[in-house]
């Protein structure tokens, strides 16, 4: 525990952030102009940080691997963003959002960080609306809210099923405004391939220009990662094809600790796998659980169509097991319950690995309300369904269209088939209260860090965290470090540390191109994904994890002996990009299994079969595992565990109960 200091300010929980902000050292405007900050990633966390830092006067360089910062995968977030506004007058408060997030995370997140998140959540909504983000409104002109899993209030703001898109475009417009003013230099189609550490501090990065293949050295007084999560370690996930761990993994290998890598979120409502050709999985937003009821047939191996199964032969298993939260239990609980039913033989569809998400009851209910509004107080069923379908269409139209496009089925007529899929990673680079990693001057924000969601993230909290970090937290906390750097002159790019880091990257690229093996990068990625899903997925056990570690080590050796990367280093070469990413995923996969093996308890998204209650719920071991597992890289397959104890002063730790 000696090496880890979370730097949580002293004082009462609700005053920590306020006090911190009023006492953190400032940097005067003249000095800001000569301080350079590198931001890697242009999603919600990266774009908001880059824009805000530039507004404050820092010189900013921002990097993304896509062709435009607007493509970052935050754009795909569907459902919404939480904020403790209490606009619905349903008893919401900063404390409740804080409490729900800690509880939802199964008591494995830091109190101080989460409370700060809840505090700034309201500012995010204000900021985005001021930017012209068109969030959904009611007829009175005020903002609308909906419910999400794991809460009993309506605090989720949204823009149809495209909330991430609208929020990202808001942050992107703020970023492009700074680009236009010359205050941010934007590097698109650039990938960070290493961090440069000089005298123990992060001082720059090595990036590859993906079009020309040129390796570039960039100096910064500080480096900020906002590079997203590592769900693609499973090959199939709801992440974009390019989402990767490479930047985070490179800094890990240079000294940044990696925390809780085994905490992965399997989202309960995704379109099931249809065949071996599948390249990614598509999420059906959690918001659908507001109006969709989840069920399977009561009879095993029932081959009847959904419409032919009468009401009393359906098992609405979430409503049965968790009457208080019903279909709106948190994601980890809903996913495991679906797996339990399918494993027991009640799954539906050709693969039997799916459950129904059925909108019929609520369509009819909405239809009745609409008919009543129009003066028809005794509508027939057909009228109800027709009017109700219009309501459902307005709420979820784009999701229903997407479902129809992918599956070829009409979800307005038959229930959706859904199954859990990898969606989000709660683990990530370890950071302290300032969001600084164990490398001074290196910061990590958004999904890429581990900080706020514990062992399970609640729906609509990822957008909240990404923007909280980028707009309202990092721009303050980074001042604490940069105020001490005002005398540091830009380090020349021919400094030996830059040269050495570039040479290492070059050697790796040369190695990839020289192997000239027989199998594509994707081939290895798929095999890695299979190992991870089977043995480090929704349920894990000692035997499987031990095997997985061996299998991944074997796969790594085979990869480095037999991968085939076509083309050359000095051109646009997506296969070479993938090779870097998959090489890093393989190493990360091993650490995830080791972390899962170490954690002899079940909590949130980490479910160890050996540790469950009689009812099959996750069984934590607070006495021995109420800590953050932060791993230090010691060499290939060697990681040293450091523990950061989690102390709960304000919340009474209890077994989560959604019954």
């Amino acid at each position, binding site marked *: 525990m000696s090496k880890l200091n979370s730097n949580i300010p002293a004082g009462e929980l609700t005053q920590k952030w306020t006090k911190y902000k009023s006492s953190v050292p400032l940097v005067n405007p003249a000095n800001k102009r000569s301080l350079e900050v590198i931001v890697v990633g242009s999603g919600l966390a990266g774009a908001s940080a880059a824009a805000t830092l530039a507004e404050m006067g820092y010189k900013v360089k921002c990097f993304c691997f*896509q*062709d*435009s*910062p607007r*493509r970052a*995968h935050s*754009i*795909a977030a569907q459902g919404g963003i939480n904020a403790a*506004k209490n606009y619905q007058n349903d008893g919401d408060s900063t404390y409740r959002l804080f409490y729900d997030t800690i509880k939802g995370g199964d008591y494995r997140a830091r109190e101080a960080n989460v409370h700060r998140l809840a505090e700034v959540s309201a*500012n995010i*909504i*204000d*900021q*985005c*609306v*001021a*930017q*012209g*983000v*068109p*969030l959904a409104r*009611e*007829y*009175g*002109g*005020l*903002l609308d809210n909906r419910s999400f899993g794991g809460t009993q209030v309506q605090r989720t703001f949204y*823009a149809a099923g495209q909330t991430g898109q*609208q929020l990202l475009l808001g942050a992107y*417009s*703020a970023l*492009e*405004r700074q*680009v*236009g003013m010359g205050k941010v230099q934007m590097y*698109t189609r650039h990938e960070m391939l290493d961090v440069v550490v000089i005298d123990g501090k992060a001082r720059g990065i090595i990036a590859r220009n993906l079009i020309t293949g040129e390796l570039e050295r960039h100096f910064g007084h500080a480096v900020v990662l906002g590079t997203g999560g590592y769900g693609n370690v499973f090959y199939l996930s*709801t992440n*974009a*094809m390019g989402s990767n761990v490479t930047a985070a993994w490179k800094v890990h290998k240079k000294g940044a600790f990696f925390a809780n890598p085994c905490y992965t979120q399997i989202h309960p409502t995704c379109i099931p796998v*249809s*065949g*071996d*050709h599948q*390249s990614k999985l*598509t*999420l059906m937003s959690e918001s659908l659980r507001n109006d969709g009821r989840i069920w399977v047939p009561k009879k095993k191996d029932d081959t009847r169509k959904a419409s032919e199964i009468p009401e009393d032969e359906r098992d609405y298993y979430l409503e049965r097991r968790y009457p208080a939260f019903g279909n709106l239990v948190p994601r980890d609980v809903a996913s495991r319950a679906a797996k339990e039913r399918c494993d027991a033989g009640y799954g539906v569809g*050709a693969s039997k690995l799916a459950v129904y998400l059925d909108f019929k009851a609520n369509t009819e209910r909405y239809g009745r309300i609409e008919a009543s509004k129009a003066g028809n107080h005794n509508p027939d069923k057909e009228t109800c369904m027709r009017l109700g379908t219009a309501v459902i269409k307005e709420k979820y139209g784009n999701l229903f269209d*997407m479902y129809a*496009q*992918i599956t*070829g089925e009409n979800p307005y007529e038959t229930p959706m088939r859904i199954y859990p899929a990898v969606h989000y990673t709660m683990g990530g680079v370890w950071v302290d209260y300032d969001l600084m990693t164990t490398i001074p001057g290196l910061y990590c924000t958004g999904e890429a860090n581990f900080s706020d969601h514990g062992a399970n993230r609640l729906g609509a909290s990822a957008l909240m965290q990404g923007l909280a970090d980028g*707009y309202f937290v990092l721009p303050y906390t980074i001042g604490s470090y940069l105020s001490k750097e005002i005398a540091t002159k830009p380090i020349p790019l021919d400094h030996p540390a830059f040269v050495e880091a570039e040479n290492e990257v070059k050697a790796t690229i040369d190695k990839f191109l020289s192997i000239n093996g*027989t199998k*594509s990068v*994707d081939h290895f990625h798929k095999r890695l994904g299979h190992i991870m899903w089977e043995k480090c997925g929704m349920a894990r056990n000692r035997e499987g994890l031990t095997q997985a570690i061996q299998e991944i080590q074997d796969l790594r050796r085979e990869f480095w002996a037999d991968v085939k990367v*076509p083309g050359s280093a000095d*051109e*646009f070469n*997506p*296969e070479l990009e993938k090779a870097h990413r998959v090489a890093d995923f393989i190493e990360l996969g091993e650490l995830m299994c080791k972390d899962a093996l170490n954690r002899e308890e079940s909590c949130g998204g980490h479910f160890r079969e050996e540790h469950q209650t009689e009812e099959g719920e996750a069984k934590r071991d607070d006495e021995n595992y109420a800590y953050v597992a932060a791993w230090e890289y010691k060499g290939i397959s060697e990681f040293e565990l450091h523990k950061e104890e989690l102390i709960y002063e304000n919340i009474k730790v209890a077994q989560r109960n959604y019954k």
Partner: protein
Amino acid sequence: MSTGNMNLTLQVWRQKNKNSAGKLVDYKLSEISPDMSFLEMFDVLNEQLITKGEEPVVFDHDCREGICGMCSMFINGQPHGPKDLVTTCQLHMRSFKDGDTIVVEPWRAKAFPVIKDLAVDRSAFDRIIASGGFVSVNTGNAQDANALPIPKIQADAAFEAAACIGCGACVATCKNASAMLFVSAKVSQLALLPQGQPERYRRVQSMVAQMDEEGFGNCTNTGACEAECPKGISLENIARMNRDYFTAKFISEEEV
């Protein structure tokens, strides 16, 4: 389930880099499943090319769920292929028939130079946004979000315009390679909202000027952009932008 029974001939644009000439190259594919997405079909092609020691086809793609706007294939003469309101990544092979020949080209426009094969440079769009596609509000200056009620109809209309994914299909399909639909969608979103009013006329002028500078063509109202837009962005936006543009020309410097 994994393999299907479709046999296809692909004619794919291959171009080494922006300086070299390109040409269509034929590829035969068999056992394609109708449940595959169009890009998964390209994954199959690339896997075969890599195994044979040939260079895979470079194409842009990322989210594969129709929202990031990165995929950009011109399929049988239509951007994003034959289906309405669908991006290439959401197009499935069940939209084609066994035995079909499918021609796949990159977006074609002077302002979108080809980088390699099917990937083009769309950074002109970013520069247009940087010229004015924003509300000038720094972080930390916002009032309470509900202090400014906005009629639902207006907010919904702004959202419809804001749904643009910046893929560039409008440019690719336009005979003039005009970017008017893209530019007008952003101009409209902000012109429809009270937050966008203070910079309304300045914005439209700078964005149009940047659009012209990037080398996009003019609008001759053929409507192909609206017909091909995967997000259904309406031509009304162009009308609204023109109106604002002309208004801006008639009001004094200070007001702009």
